[in-house]
C-alpha cells in the first residue's frame, strides 16, 4: 500500500469509526463502490468535507448472536477497508482509461464481418518490391514502410 490515510477516529465505544481521506487521491465513485462490497457487515455514511471525504463506518451487528457468535471488531476491518479503497480507485482509473477502447472492441465484436476491421499494419513487400535493392552483394533491410 503506497498511500497513508490521514486518520481514523473511533467513538468511545469503538462502534463507529470516521475515516478521512483526501479527495484528490480517492474519487467519490471509488469510495462508494468499495463501501458497497461491505454491505453485509458494515454501514457506511459518506460525506464531502472540503478537500476530504468523511466516511463513517459502523457494524451492522454489534453484539454476538446465535447466527454470528464471533463479531469482527471495527478496527479489525480497517486494513480490508483501506485495501478496498486502493483497489477501487485503481479500478476507476482503469475504467476511465479504457472505456473508449472497450467500446471499440465490443463494437468490432458485434459488427458485420469486415465492417469495422482495421487494415493490417505495415507492408508485406520485400526489398525487390520496395526498390531497396542497393546492390546485388550487400542489402540492408530497414524499418521503412511505404505509404
Amino acid at each position: 500500500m503506497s498511500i497513508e490515510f490521514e486518520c481514523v477516529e473511533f467513538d468511545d465505544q469503538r462502534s463507529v469509526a470516521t475515516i478521512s481521506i483526501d479527495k484528490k487521491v480517492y474519487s467519490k465513485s471509488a469510495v462508494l463502490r468499495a463501501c458497497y462490497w461491505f454491505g453485509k457487515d458494515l454501514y457506511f455514511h459518506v460525506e464531502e468535507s472540503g478537500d476530504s471525504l468523511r466516511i463513517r463506518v459502523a457494524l451492522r451487528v454489534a453484539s454476538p448472536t446465535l447466527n454470528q457468535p464471533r463479531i469482527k471488531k471495527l478496527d479489525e476491518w480497517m486494513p480490508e477497508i483501506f485495501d478496498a479503497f486502493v483497489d477501487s480507485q485503481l479500478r476507476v482509473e482503469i475504467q476511465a482509461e479504457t472505456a473508449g477502447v472497450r467500446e471499440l472492441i465490443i463494437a468490432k465484436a458485434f459488427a458485420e464481418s469486415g465492417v469495422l476491421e482495421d487494415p493490417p499494419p505495415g507492408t508485406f513487400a520485400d526489398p525487390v518490391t520496395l526498390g531497396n535493392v542497393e546492390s546485388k552483394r550487400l542489402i540492408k533491410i530497414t524499418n521503412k514502410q511505404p505509404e
Partner: protein
Amino acid sequence: MRSFTGIADFKPTDGSYRLLPFRFHRLDKLNEILVNECGEFVVAPLGTTETIVRKKLLPTDNIYPTLKAKHFIYDDYSSALLDVLASKYRTKFDFIHGSTKLHIFVVTLRCDHSCHYCQVSRQTVNKGEFDMPREVAEAAVKMMLETPSPHITLELQGGEPLLAFDTIKYIVSIAKPGAARLSKELDIVITSNLAFLTDEILDYCNAEEIKLSSSLDGPEFIHNANRPRPGGDSYRVAVEGIKRARRALGANRVAALMTTTQLSLQHPREIIDEYVRQSFHTIFLRPISPYGFAVKSSHRTGYDMDAFLEFYVTGLNHIIDLNRKGYSLTEIYTKILLQKILMPEGTGYVDLQSPSGAGLNVLVYNYDGDVYATDEARMLAEMQDYTFKLGNVLKHSRAQIFTSPAFVNLLQAACNQSLPGCSDCAFQPYCGADPVYHHATQGDMIGHRATSGFCKRNMRVIEHLFSLLQNGDPDTQDILWGWVTDRNLAEIRADIPQ
C-alpha cells in the same frame, strides 16, 4: 547478403504503454489475479495492478511481454490487435446466436412425489385438469419452432411428465416433423422420477430417440428423506428405473441430477459414491434453488452458502480422488466454469450466462400456456409473483413475448457487465447474471452483491478453482483439463508427455 538489425530497433519508442480493459481481484495474501475482457488471466504478486496502472512498469520487466501477449497493455511498437481481441470476445458471446435453444414444456402438474425442494406446486395424481391441453401444446410447439437456432432442445417436465404420457406423445408427434420441415435438429429429453416408467414408454423413447433425465439425490437414506412418495420407496424406484432405462435406451441416453438439501450437505462423499455405484460418469453439485416449495419448507432445505461451499470443496476433492484412482467422473458445475476460464467459448448453461439466459436461452411453457423466462420464474408464479411471466402462447406471438414489459424489465438486469459490484468484478467473464434468483431472494432483480448467495457461491468456487489450477498437483490439473476437453485421465495422459 543482407545485414541484420539489432534488437534495439524492435522496441517501443519510449517506455510508455497504454491499458486495455481489465479487472483484478486479491486472490490471497500473496497474489492478485488480473482478468481481461475475454477472460484471459494473469496471476501476479499483490501490487502488480498498481504498478501497471501507475505506469511504473518497464519494457524490461519480465511480466511486460506477458501482459502484452495476454492483451492487458499495448505500446507503440506494435498493434494492439483489437480485431483479434474482438474475435475472442465474439466467440465468448456466441451462445447468444440463434436465441432460445432450450424449451421446457410443463406438461402436467400432477406428481406422486412430495419432494421438499420441489419447485412445482404439484397436484395429486388424478387431477387431469392440470395437464397441458392440445391447443396449448400446438401453440407452444409453434412458438418453439420460431426460434432462429438450428439446434433446439425440447425438455418435457412436470410434476411427473410420464403421468401425462399421451400429451407427451402428442407434442413429440407435432414437434418432430415441424423441426424437420425447418431443417432444425431437435433433441428431446424427459425429466422424470421414473416411478411410472412402463415398457411401453421405454419402447417409445427408444423409437423416438428421447433421452431420460432422472433424480438421484444420493444413497437410499438421503434420497428417500429428500423425496417422499407414497410407499417411501423413491430410491428403489429410481434405481430400478435407471437400470431399465439404460437397458432400453443405452447408458448415454440416461442422466441423473441431484438436488442438495440440509441433509445432503452432511454427506458429500456418500452421495458421490452412490453415483459411482450406479455407474454414472457425471454429477452436478448444485445448491438448492430458493423457489416454490423450497421457500415454504425452508427449515428443511434452507442453509447458508458457507455450508454449501464446504460440501462442494469436500465433494470435489473426493471426485478428483476417484478420477485419480481410475474412475471417470466429471463434476458438471466445475466443468462449466473451467470451460469459461480456460477455453475460448462461453457456455450454454443458463445460470452462468451474461446476458442472462432467462428468455434469451430458455423459455418455459406452462401447462396453461403461460410463458415464463425460466423454470424458477414459473415457481414464483406459483406464489402469485408474476414478475417474469412473459405472456401466453394462446394470446401472444413470439415477438410480443420478447417485447413484453416483463422481458424488457428483465433485460435491464440481465448483463453483469453493468450490474453494481459485477461491473468491477474480476470474475465477470466467468460468471453470469441471474435476475430471477435475485428477485426471489432479495426482492430486486439487480440484486445486492455483498449479500447475494449467487455471488458468494460463484466467487468462492472460482477462487477455489484458481487455487487448483495454480497449485494443484499434476494429476489434478490433468483431470480438470480432461473434463474441459472431454477426455478421461487415461486418455489425456496418452496425449501429454509421459
